[in-house]
């Protein structure tokens, strides 16, 4: 029996590999499993190679897994293009199209030889039972359902529902193809049974969503009534979603003429009193950075999502990376501090997005939400929750009393001044990019500039005490510390639980507030730490370096950092940690 199965499939564009993955994850959700599904494509607009990975488990999981348990290749050329994204190991069951003519002991895979290699006439079964090659994905689903016992009935009913629009004939053909796959699996049993166990615990209501959709839904829930942006991979689905939905809630979706106008219109909407959002990816962030400075000095709430991709420049638009952290934190001109938040999963992005709006409103500031391609595009099964558990914060508007001799930028103890908006009688003010006095009149004096910088920076002091924006797990006194962020945090979480299970004394810190750096929270974490790792997907180890800029980091803390498209495996994190632990033992710590 199996409780955790990583399946990877690849084929060419028309093979319906991703669609098969979607059928599988929907069925798994209905049956109460946990799962994460990622997709990956070649650069072609249509056609080309496509793949998906699906990890299904009976218990909660936090990442899409490492070496595949099951690999499916509809043709070798496409499968091999994904390299490290679809890693085959010595325990993998390799299923491939027999028409490729490759013999089972001559597989074109580098490194480990899979445990089992099964050449299956997938195309032939599709042709014979459905009359078309296009039913290959239904055959594959039948094979997987047969060999691994995953959600047979739900898969079939899912396929049927999905194809219902295409007519009874197509539905019947695909049912035959699915059954053929199922029968083939039954008549060709695996050397050792690999049936999935049933999910643990009582059946709860599951959702299936990806990060961009979940982020957009959270924006609507948070009261966002204005989105403007410019299409850019991998963030465009936020625009697509809000284009469909935000109008229903009285909001506006403006597809702007460029990235600058995208954030500009959002700044304008915020000035007019609305909660506003823009979304982009790295190159777009560069274009938006002047306008972010304006929102900082004019103290206007705004949420700007950066769905990170591999850079610099156009880089690898379809692949993720965590290399825009420095950009988010440091790309401001002048002494501008901007809160930066980062979710760790699809389940998490809802709350983090609501929090981004709350921080923006409370502190009258632009907030950068750093998502990444992995979270944006991966589908996750998550337990449903009641969104009303999240409190919403509105900007502090002036009272009648405060409108008498109103000063927009009044220097207050908290640094936060009541904010008016056009339409409010007596609240008239000049918002401006120029340095200004409390009344909004331009001011070129050094004294006022220092005062205003102080106001704009020190207002964030309470934010650095927000412990709820950090995940801290493990043994509080542990000498081994693990730190990670964003989608890669899921790898660290699994490493923590496996490491502790094998006796490593370790703990984990995952910041969701990336900036301003909460020095105290890091310092507290490091109190017992002698050695450890900061794990992240960037070549320079940007988080590792950022923390060192603000916090005294124990000398034994090291960086495990890789460029995008190079998966970071739980196993390699554990290997490093084990070596560090044995180093500690030798030194008698």
């Amino acid at each position, binding site marked *: 029996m199996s409780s955790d199965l990583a399946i990877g499939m690849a084929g060419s564009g028309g093979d319906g590999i991703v669609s098969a993955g979607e059928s599988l994850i929907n069925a798994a959700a209905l049956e109460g499993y946990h799962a994460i599904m990622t997709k990956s494509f070649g650069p072609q607009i249509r056609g080309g190679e496509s793949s998906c990975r699906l990890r299904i488990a009976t218990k909660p999981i936090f990442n899409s897994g490492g070496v595949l348990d099951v690999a499916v290749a509809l043709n070798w050329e496409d499968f091999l293009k994904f390299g490290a994204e679809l890693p085959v190991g010595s325990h993998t069951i390799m299923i491939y199209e027999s028409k490729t003519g490759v013999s089972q002991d001559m597989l074109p895979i580098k490194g480990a030889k899979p445990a089992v290699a099964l050449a299956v006439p997938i195309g032939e079964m599709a042709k014979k039972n459905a009359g078309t090659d296009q039913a290959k994905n239904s055959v594959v689903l039948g094979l997987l359902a047969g060999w691994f016992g995953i959600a047979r009935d739900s898969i079939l009913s899912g396929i049927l529902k999905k194809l219902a629009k295409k007519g009874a004939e197509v539905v019947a053909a695909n049912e035959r193809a699915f059954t053929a796959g199922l029968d083939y699996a039954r008549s060709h049993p695996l050397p050792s049974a690999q049936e999935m166990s049933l999910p643990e615990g009582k059946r709860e209501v599951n959702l299936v969503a990806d990060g961009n959709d979940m982020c957009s839904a959270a924006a609507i829930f948070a009261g966002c009534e204005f989105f403007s942006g410019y299409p850019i991979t991998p963030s465009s689905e936020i625009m697509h979603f809000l284009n469909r939905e935000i109008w229903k809630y009285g909001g506006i979706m403006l597809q702007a003429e460029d990235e600058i106008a995208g954030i500009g219109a959002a700044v304008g909407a915020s000035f007019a009193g609305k909660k506003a959002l823009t979304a982009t990816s790295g190159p777009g962030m560069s274009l938006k950075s002047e306008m972010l400075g304006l929102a900082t000095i004019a103290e206007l709430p705004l949420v700007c999502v950066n769905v990170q991709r591999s850079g610099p420049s156009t880089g690898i638009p379809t692949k993720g990376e965590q290399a825009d952290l420095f950009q988010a934190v440091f790309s401001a001109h002048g002494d501008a501090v901007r809160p930066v938040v980062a979710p760790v999963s699809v389940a998490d992005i*809802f709350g983090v997005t609501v929090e981004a709006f709350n921080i923006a409103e409370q502190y009258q500031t632009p907030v950068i939400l750093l998502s990444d391609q992995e979270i944006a595009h991966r589908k996750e099964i998550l337990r449903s929750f009641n969104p009303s558990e999240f409190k919403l914060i509105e900007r502090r508007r002036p009272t009648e009393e405060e409108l008498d001799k109103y000063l927009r930028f009044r220097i207050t103890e908290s640094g936060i001044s009541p904010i008016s908006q056009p339409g409010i009688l007596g609240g008239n003010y000049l918002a401006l990019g120029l340095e200004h006095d409390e009344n909004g009149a331009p001011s070129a004096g050094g004294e006022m500039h220092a005062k205003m910088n102080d106001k704009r920076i020190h207002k964030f002091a309470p934010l650095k005490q927000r412990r709820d924006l950090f995940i801290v797990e493990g043994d509080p006194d542990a000498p081994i510390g693990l730190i990670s962020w964003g989608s890669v945090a899921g790898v660290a979480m699994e490493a923590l639980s496996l490491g502790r299970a094998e006796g490593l004394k370790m703990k984990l810190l995952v910041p969701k507030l990336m900036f301003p750096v909460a020095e105290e929270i890091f310092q507290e974490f490091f109190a017992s730490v002698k050695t450890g790792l900061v794990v992240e997907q960037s070549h320079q180890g940007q988080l590792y370096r950022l923390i060192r800029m603000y916090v005294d980091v124990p000398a034994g803390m090291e960086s495990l950092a890789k460029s995008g498209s190079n998966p970071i495996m739980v196993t390699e994190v554990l290997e490093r940690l084990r070596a560090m632990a044995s180093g500690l033992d030798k030194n008698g710590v």
Partner: protein
Amino acid sequence: MNMPTSPRVEYVSKDYKSDLKPIWCPGCGDFGVLIAICRALAAIGRPPHEIAFISGIGCSSRIPGYTTAYGFNAVHGRALPIAQGIKLANPDLLVLVAGGDGDGFSIGGNHISHAIRRNPDLTYIVMDNQIYGLTKGQLSPTSPRGLKTTSSTFGSLEDPVNPLLYVLGYGARFVAQGTPADMDGLTTVIEEGIRYPGFSFINVQSPCVTYGEPEFQIKAQKTRMQSVEKLGHDPTDRLRAMALAQEYGQKLYTGVLFRSSESCPTYEAAARERHKALAGSGLPKERILEMFLPR
């Protein structure tokens, strides 16, 4: 700022003028534009708190701060996107946009055409002085070919942008030109532009007294300017308007060059229609996650 504390039925132009002292040089054409705007606003009579006045960067872009309206002196070239966000967020506001020729036709050049095709009800006033004043006398997009400036010691090698032809070419529905050399005419075109239900563009020949050429100064303008109305121009004729616009740089036409007689919905009106059509069709917000239930 001297702001009225309660809405009044009637306003005079000084109700729209703030106490802030302009940074402009004595004799700058922008003083006249400020007065004309205040007069036009008084004629229209909307209270200052219902007006949003947006600008970019440059001498002329300081103008919102010299009024009692809600002002936004933003970043270089981006007044139009910000103004559109404001207008869409609150369509009840009267939204004015202003800036210089560099702000509008150089760094912000991409935004004009898109504002025109969306047709939001806002009025864009360009104070065109054929020079960069704030940064001390460089070549601007409307500087004539051959002009010697701090950034073109040996003379400009480029043709100027023709602002009137540019906006007409993109389909602008209200295009006018004015000059502080004719304050009544300027006030009238600004008022008409504000009253026009859609995007209106007004080019104002507002001379720079410090870096500008003699031929652009008020005195010279007074002899050059020519009212298109007096020429018998039909402002609903786009092609005739384009023919007049073609003479930008040689002739100084004033008045309304083009006012479309075809009706076109504003962006915000179209948005309001969509809101009506879709109202209530979304899941209640507290149940929004139901859209992710597996099927």
